[in-house]
C-alpha cells in the first residue's frame, strides 16, 4: 500500500490542470448511463472538439433518441430534441434558417439506421452543411438491447441470442461506406471509444468534421463505435476487446472520405 500516490487532493508542487473531472460544457453527474458504457467518452469528445475550435456559442446539438439522450439536459450547448430518426431533417431546417450556426446531430444506430434511415441519406445527398454523428453499438440499447441494422454477424443481442445469422436476420449495413460515395458528402470517418489510441484518433476526426462544416464544404459524418456491455451480455472490462474483435472487424475504423484533403476530386 505504501507505493500508492495520494489522489485525494491536487498536488502541492507546481502543475497545470489538464482535465477537471467532467469536461467543460458537461455537468458532472449529467447522465445515468451504465457502468462501462462507451457513449460518455463519445459525447465528451464531441463537445470538447466543438469547444476547442471556438464554435461553442454558435453550436446546436440535435439529439435523436437513445441512451445518449440522457446528456441533453446536462450540457451547456444549445440542444434540440428530434423525433426518433428525424434529427438530420431538423438539423437541415435549423442550418438553413441560421446558416451561421454549427449544427450537429447525436444519433444512435437504432435511431439513424433503423428508425430514420432516409433522413440521413437525403441530408447527405443534398449536401446539407451539417455534421451527423452516429454512436454505433449495434443494439437498441435504451429499449433493452435488441438487434439493429448495424449489428454485426455473430453479435449476440436480446433477439439474436445465438449471434446474428445472415440466413435468419439478413446482413448489416455499413453506414459510413454507404454515405461516402454521395456527391454532397465532404467528410466521412469511423472512430471508436474502446481504447486510448482510438479516442485520440476520434478526436481528430471530429475536429476535421466540424472544420469542414465551418468552412462550408458540405455534409460531414462521423460514426463512433461505442461499448454497450449491458446489451452485449459482457463484463464491463471485456467490452473494449469485443468491440475490437467483433464490431471493428466489420465496421473498419478510419477516414473514408475527406474532400478538404483532396479538393479536386
Amino acid at each position, binding site marked *: 500500500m505504501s507505493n500508492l*500516490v495520494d489522489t485525494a487532493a491536487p498536488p502541492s508542487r507546481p*502543475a497545470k490542470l*489538464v*482535465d477537471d*473531472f467532467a469536461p467543460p460544457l458537461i455537468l458532472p453527474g449529467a447522465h445515468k448511463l451504465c457502468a462501462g458504457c462507451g457513449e460518455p467518452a463519445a459525447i465528451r469528445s464531441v463537445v470538447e472538439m466543438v469547444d476547442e475550435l471556438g464554435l461553442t456559442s454558435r453550436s446546436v446539438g440535435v439529439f435523436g433518441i437513445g441512451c445518449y439522450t440522457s446528456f441533453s439536459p446536462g450540457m451547456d450547448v444549445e440542444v434540440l430534441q428530434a423525433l426518433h430518426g428525424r434529427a438530420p431533417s431538423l438539423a437541415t431546417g435549423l442550418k438553413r434558417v441560421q446558416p451561421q450556426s454549427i449544427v450537429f446531430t447525436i444519433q444512435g444506430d437504432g435511431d439513424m439506421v433503423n428508425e430514420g434511415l432516409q433522413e440521413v441519406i437525403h441530408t447527405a445527398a443534398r449536401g446539407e452543411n451539417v455534421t451527423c454523428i452516429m454512436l454505433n453499438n449495434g443494439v437498441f440499447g435504451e429499449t433493452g438491447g435488441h438487434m439493429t441494422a448495424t449489428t454485426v454477424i455473430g453479435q449476440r443481442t436480446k433477439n439474436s441470442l445465438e449471434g446474428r445469422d445472415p440466413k435468419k436476420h439478413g446482413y448489416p449495413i455499413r453506414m459510413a461506406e454507404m454515405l461516402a460515395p454521395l456527391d454532397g458528402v465532404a467528410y466521412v470517418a469511423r472512430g471508436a471509444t474502446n481504447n486510448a489510441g482510438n479516442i485520440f484518433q476520434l478526436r481528430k476526426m471530429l475536429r476535421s468534421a466540424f472544420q469542414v462544416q465551418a468552412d462550408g464544404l458540405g455534409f460531414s459524418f462521423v460514426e463512433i463505435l461505442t461499448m454497450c456491455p449491458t446489451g452485449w451480455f459482457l463484463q464491463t472490462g471485456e467490452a473494449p476487446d469485443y468491440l475490437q474483435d467483433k464490431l471493428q472487424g466489420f465496421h473498419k475504423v478510419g477516414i473514408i472520405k475527406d474532400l478538404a484533403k483532396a479538393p479536386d476530386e
Partner: protein
Amino acid sequence: MTRESRGTLVIDIERCKGCELCIDACKPGVLAMTTQSRNDMGYLYPELTPGCTACHACALICPDFVFQVWKYDDPVAVGEAAP
C-alpha cells in the same frame, strides 16, 4: 531507465462505477483497482502508483468523469517524496 512521474490525478472515488475501462486505457499501467476497499455505492475503484504521464487517457475513456489530471511543471523522479 529512470522512471519519473510527469503528472498526477485527483480521483473522485465516490463517482466511480467500477467498470475498469481506465485500467487498460492507461499505457504506463500505473492504475490498479482496489481489491478490498469499496466506495459508498459498493464499487471497487482505481488507485494510482507512481509513473503517471498526465496523458489523460483515463479521463477521456472514463464514463463517469472520475479523474482530475495534473501535469507537473517539472517531472518528479519515482521514489522522491510524494507529490
